[in-house]
């Protein structure tokens, strides 16, 4: 370990758990993230809102290492995510580093993405057994506890297609939690659900929000819910944070015209 490493390690506890430093993400000519600066503190619950195409989901997908970045640096827990140190130089990260970094994050997908050929319980035990090396009995016990938590213990031996969308998404949340992530990423978790099933999923997320240590990053169109559970709201527009602040400030007294227009459109769609 050289000096630079020690200084970085020493600073880790007070550092934000997530830090985007002038991150650029492009899809072809389209700039999705435009030199984005963005920080999340340990245990913080942050909701990202904004029009579609504003780069909200991309932020989560970059953190989950599903989408590489074109420029800038992303830090998770003080460590660069898409880079690794060689001496004092940042070089593109190799798979072992990405694998290590990925273990800090859990993701809940809009389309659930449960493994359809596995039972609900097997969905929850596959990765803990294969990746974390937990023995099967222990993984099942822990899986059942998580199913208990999301209210689906009685569905453990069913296959995903036998469940409602809301139930599937609750399994999706439990599956991500089974890997004991420090950061939970929710990518529009209720957008694919019938309206009457949204509540049960939000209730599970709400109960997670009470966990002090868990950092949560949520992309959603459920504004009332975002207001209840978030410590901070970030309004994304054209690949940048246009405005951010406490939920009550953003929702009741937005400063930016873009924010006002967006909130008006989503909160009073009938006007």
């Amino acid at each position, binding site marked *: 370990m050289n000096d630079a490493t020690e200084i970085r390690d020493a600073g880790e506890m007070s550092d934000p758990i997530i830090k985007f430093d002038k991150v650029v993400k492009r899809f072809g000519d389209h700039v999705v993230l435009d030199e984005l600066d963005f920080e999340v503190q340990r245990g913080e619950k942050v909701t990202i809102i904004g029009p579609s195409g504003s780069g909200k989901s991309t932020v989560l997908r970059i953190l989950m290492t599903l989408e590489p970045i074109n420029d800038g640096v992303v830090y998770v827990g003080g460590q660069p995510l898409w880079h690794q140190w060689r001496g004092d130089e940042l070089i593109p990260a190799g798979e072992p580093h990405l694998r290590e970094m*990925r273990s800090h*994050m859990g993701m809940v997908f809009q389309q659930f*993405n449960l493994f*359809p*050929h596995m039972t609900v319980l097997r969905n929850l035990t596959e990765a803990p057994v294969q*990746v974390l090396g937990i023995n099967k009995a222990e993984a099942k016990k822990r899986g059942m506890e998580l199913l208990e938590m999301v209210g689906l213990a009685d569905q453990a031996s069913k296959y995903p297609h036998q469940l409602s969308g809301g139930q599937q998404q609750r399994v999706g949340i439990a599956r991500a939690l089974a*890997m004991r992530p420090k950061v939970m990423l929710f990518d529009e978790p209720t957008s694919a659900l019938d309206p009457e099933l949204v509540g049960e999923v939000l209730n599970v997320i709400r109960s997670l929000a009470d966990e002090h240590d868990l950092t949560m990053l949520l992309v959603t169109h459920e504004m009332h819910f975002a207001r209840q559970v978030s410590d901070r709201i970030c309004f994304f527009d054209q690949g940048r944070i246009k405005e951010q602040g406490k939920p009550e400030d953003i929702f009741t007294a937005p400063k930016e015209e873009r924010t006002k227009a967006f909130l008006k459109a989503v909160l009073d769609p009938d006007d």
Partner: protein
Amino acid sequence: MFFGIEWDTSSQWAFAVSIFPILLHGLVITLEATVVGFFIALALGLVLAALKSAPTRFIRWPAKLLTEFIRDTPLLIQLFFLFYVLPEFGLTLPAFLTGALALGVQYSAYTSEVYRGGLEAVASGQREAARALNLAPARTFTHIILPQAIPRIIPALGNYLVSIMKDVPVLGVVTVLEMLGVARIIGDRTGGYLIPLTMVGGIYLILTIIASLGVRYLDTHLPKRGLSLK
């Protein structure tokens, strides 16, 4: 007389009954060529599919080109190449093996596309979920992707098995004595083609129907719990 079996030309019915065991001798060859050709197609197709999804285009492109070449040229040309050209380079294979190999090579172009299509049909979200859970790439392939791809792949492969069986008569041109060839020889020697050829057609029809039922059975009984295959 053929295969040591005499035919009885006293009546048409007696003729048909007497040549049936002779045709069955040919049928055995037909089925053997089908099975051997099919297994070559399965294995070679897998290799082609892997090459066609290789990370570098220097492997991908030649593999795609080869697939295209195989698909766009008649089976007969490939058969002639294997049978007449390879010996010029000192490699002489028995006629049966040459024929089965030609069938296998021809159909590997199709099976490779079946594999590729089956794998690509698995939703990208499955790979993303596996990655998010940090499952190793090999584990993801064997336990997440393959189990979802196989129920799509097997029925399609079954259809090619039937196609191979119907292409076996082509091997007659390189002296493989399969069922249709046997029927033709019976016709040559007795002067009556109608009955042997009709019987071969009938046997093919029955085999194809059985095979189709088999494919349909597989389609409904494969382990695809939870998979919707639309």
